[in-house]
């Protein structure tokens, strides 16, 4: 029985090979090779590019532990990742529910379009638009003061909240899309059954809808958390004085001092930390899912 299924899966693999090959070839060339080069760089004292001598070293990884700076920033970035993910759930999940279960036809398409819209615009354009909205004397400040009877001063630009707003706006579509897919797959009759058996709306939400849509929530959270922890563009532009994060420090190593080895080592430490977090969380998440 076991042998039989193994043969079956092997022949399945053989027939699937032509279909898989382009994707794997692409992944090998475009991701695996450059990434291995980066692993290689991270153990070097200097880049061989400029004809300078170089040797293997662990010093780049040791640098992370020798200065409290990197750990502080890594923790700040992890916190940023958690906060942004949380806000994406708070904002994205209800939106996904409404899209999947309440709206139908034209209005659903229209709302869907609005959700996807950020995807179609360039990231820098989005961030600079936020800069115009959030600053003192900007669009938000002017609009609120025009409506409100009392004077308020809104200057969110160059602050931690500005970074959160910018990142949540960029990443919330991931949450909406993944949750929408799982919510849509929930059979309406399950919800009706729960209601007819006397469950309140809240109980239905807690016992039926959330557990069944958990895979979408988890996928969305992972899709958002990982890139946000390494983000550098949004913090740099919107964060001002408070915008130094782990990602911006890595960027500095690559761009400002041309120290690719240290930049690469810092990136792989981040990758390792993120993988450890996902590994620790996975039993919990799997049970939940």
């Amino acid at each position: 029985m076991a042998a039989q299924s193994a043969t079956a899966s092997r022949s399945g693999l053989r027939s699937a090979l032509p279909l898989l090959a382009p994707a794997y070839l692409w992944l090998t060339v475009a991701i695996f090779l450059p990434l291995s080069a980066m692993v290689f760089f991270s153990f070097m004292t200097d880049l061989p590019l400029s004809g300078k001598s170089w040797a293997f070293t662990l010093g780049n990884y040791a640098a992370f532990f020798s200065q409290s700076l990197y750990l502080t920033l890594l923790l700040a970035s992890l916190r940023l990742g958690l906060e942004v993910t949380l806000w994406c759930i708070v904002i994205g999940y209800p939106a996904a529910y409404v899209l999947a279960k309440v709206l139908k036809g034209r209005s659903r398409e229209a709302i869907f379009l609005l959700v996807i819209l950020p995807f179609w615009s360039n990231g820098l354009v989005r961030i600079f638009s936020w800069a115009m909205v959030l600053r003192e004397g900007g669009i938000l400040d002017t609009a609120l003061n025009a409506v409100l009877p009392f004077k308020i001063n809104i200057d969110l630009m160059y602050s931690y909240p500005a970074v959160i707003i910018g990142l949540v706006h960029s990443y919330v579509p991931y949450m909406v899309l993944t949750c929408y897919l799982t919510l849509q797959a929930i059979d309406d009759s399950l919800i009706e059954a729960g209601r007819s058996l006397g469950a309140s709306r809240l109980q239905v939400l807690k016992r039926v809808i959330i557990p069944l849509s958990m895979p979408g929530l988890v996928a969305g959270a992972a899709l958002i958390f990982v890139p946000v922890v390494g983000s550098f563009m949004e913090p740099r532009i919107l964060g001002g004085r408070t915008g130094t994060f782990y990602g911006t420090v890595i960027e500095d190593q690559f761009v400002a001092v041309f120290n690719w080895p240290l930049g690469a080592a810092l990136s792989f430490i981040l990758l390792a930390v993120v993988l450890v977090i996902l590994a620790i969380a996975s039993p919990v998440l799997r049970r939940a899912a």
Partner: protein
Amino acid sequence: MRMPRLTALLTATAVFTTALTLAASAAEVHVLNWKGYGADEPWAVAAFEKATGNKVVNDFFNSEQEMLTKIRTNPGLYDVVMINAAFNDQAMAEKLIQPIDTSKLPNYADISKDKAGSPMLDHDGKVYGVPWVWGLTALAINEKSFDNPPTSIAEMWDPKHKGRVVIRDDAVEAVQFGAIATGQNINDIKDMDAVKTKLTSLMPQIKTFWSSENDWNQMVASNQIDIGTYWSGSADRAKTHFKLPVSLVIPREGAVAWLDAFSIPVGSKNVEGAQAFINWMIDPKFYVEWVTKVGAPVSANTKAVEALPQDAFNRKVMGDPEVAKRIQFQAPITDAQREAYLALWQQLKVDVK
């Protein structure tokens, strides 16, 4: 059926690429410079192309490190590269640039002697960089926030500007600025702790770290800042070209001066075109037009500066011997120093979070 079509497509691509490569070698001058920094002005490029028959192809960098990487990784692509004099040494040591035959540059004779003879550009009696323009990293103010322009660097620390001060996100510039504020030589900082203490007390004043001219100009245009570090040429451009209420302040404590020069990379395919282009760039006619139309730093060519009106900022203020006494020219920095400066700068930025 499929394969021949693919082959045809590949062949077509190959032919097309070859055609492009061939076209590229026909009297083109590939220039590598900061964006919006003179060499890419459309009117200047058009006039040069008309006069010499060379076609100018501009490429840009966003930091000196990126510039060096671009020449390292594209040997033979560029014919002219604009290198800050402090980096000329490194570029020469790595054999990225070649000696320049200055006898082919008629305007070279008019370059001020102290710039042309700079030990940063001349090695073993050979010229590796032709001085182009120089300028300052000084302070600039939002005129709306001041009745009288300040004279001291201490203005940056004044509590009344809290949250309305900017500084460039650049470790070397920040540390050298700290050296000036603590009365030290920027090229030989003895008391690094004093610099760190001074900059630490500046950090809470800061609104944000700027990285491009556009950042600075936007913040002044929306009246979000009072004062900050700025480049002299950029302040001039902000005032002349963008009509912003910006004026440059050269504090009595001094300012950081830099010298930008043109070099010819090793392997240039059009050295003659490169020489013609560099000569064009240091010509008084180009310089006066650049200053008038756009705003620019100070030319290294004395005749070019003399061609400006008497009261022009670049002639009157920057040419003032009193100013010359206060400024300190940037010397080359080792990689170790650069990394130490970055570590200090990052620590300061983390501490203020």
